[in-house]
């Protein structure tokens, strides 16, 4: 695994991402971020809070689907938490872009960052599909299709992997 990540990092060093990272690091925004010590920790805090919003939303929808948490109807639960999920995802993108602006080389020339991005794209697409499937279940009452249940579980696991990716960015061979 270590060799694979190292080779991935080597490959990234030969791409346009190096020039892009250096260009980003010379922008006024990047300079401002690196010269203000608390900017990156604060952006990371906001990023973590956005993850908390999105993960709790996915978790509560999954819990409702499995009947573990069940005071409100499926429609009410789905409506409430999918809104939280979309707003949290928007916050994740904005704070994530801010962190890239502050530390472009650490992020863009990092194999785990790109694995995380692939998982985020998969997660977002699956979440959009999942939300649409869930809406179709609203009028069927409490009977939830097996595929929707499976997708809810998949999303919870995927979110854990995305969180793991985010933490391991700091430990990747760059």
């Amino acid at each position, binding site marked *: 695994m270590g060799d694979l990540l190292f080779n991935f990092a080597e490959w990234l060093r030969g791409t346009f991402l190096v020039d892009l990272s250096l260009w980003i690091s010379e922008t006024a925004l990047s300079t401002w971020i690196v010269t203000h*010590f608390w900017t*990156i*920790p*604060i952006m*990371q*805090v906001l990023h*973590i*809070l956005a*993850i*908390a*919003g999105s*993960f*709790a*939303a996915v*978790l*509560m929808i999954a*819990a*409702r689907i499995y009947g*573990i*948490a*069940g*005071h*409100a109807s499926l429609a*009410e639960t789905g*409506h*409430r938490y999918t809104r*939280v999920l979309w707003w949290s995802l928007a916050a994740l993108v904005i704070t994530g872009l801010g962190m890239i602006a502050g530390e472009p080389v650490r992020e863009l020339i990092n194999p785990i960052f790109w694995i995380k991005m692939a998982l985020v794209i998969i997660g977002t697409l699956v979440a959009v599909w999942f939300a649409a499937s869930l809406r179709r279940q609203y009028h069927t009452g409490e009977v939830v299709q097996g595929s929707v249940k499976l997708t809810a579980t998949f999303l919870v696991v995927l979110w*854990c992997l995305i*969180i*793991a990716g*985010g*933490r*391991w960015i*700091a*430990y990747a061979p760059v």
Partner: protein
Amino acid sequence: MYPEPTNIWQSIEYSPLGIFLAESTWAFPTLETLHVIALVTVIGTIAIVDLRLVGVGSRAHRVSLLAKDTLPWTWGAFALAALTGGLLFVSKASSYVINPYFLWKMGLLALAGLNMMYFHLTLWRTVDHWEQDPSFPFAAKLAGWLSLVFWVLVVFFGRAIGFTLSFYF
């Protein structure tokens, strides 16, 4: 070789467990990952109830039922966060105890706990009477705001520890 411990924190840090966690290439990041997963679950589920208390978002859901749905997740995740946080502490005990951000984080955790305990022992006992009112009592809103502020600060000080460990040794 590690030096002979001269205080309790060094004894913890230089214990076989502390040395293993500090020397392992995978143990610390793995514990951090589990700590983050637990932490975001705690904060996300607490925020669901807090935001309802302060009146943000949909008011269609009764706050007592929202709490019933979220509390098992909150407590389970809190237990995991405490366990993983404890193990992270063991790996660098003597650095953490002199880090002011770590001490602030512990203080804020205590305040968040006291706020929750006070709320549950007082106003929460009569939640059935006020939760269907258009506006919640001031004390309930205040408890919600305090909880949100305390937990955001817990995250901030937690993150600040990682950025300042080299400043205090």
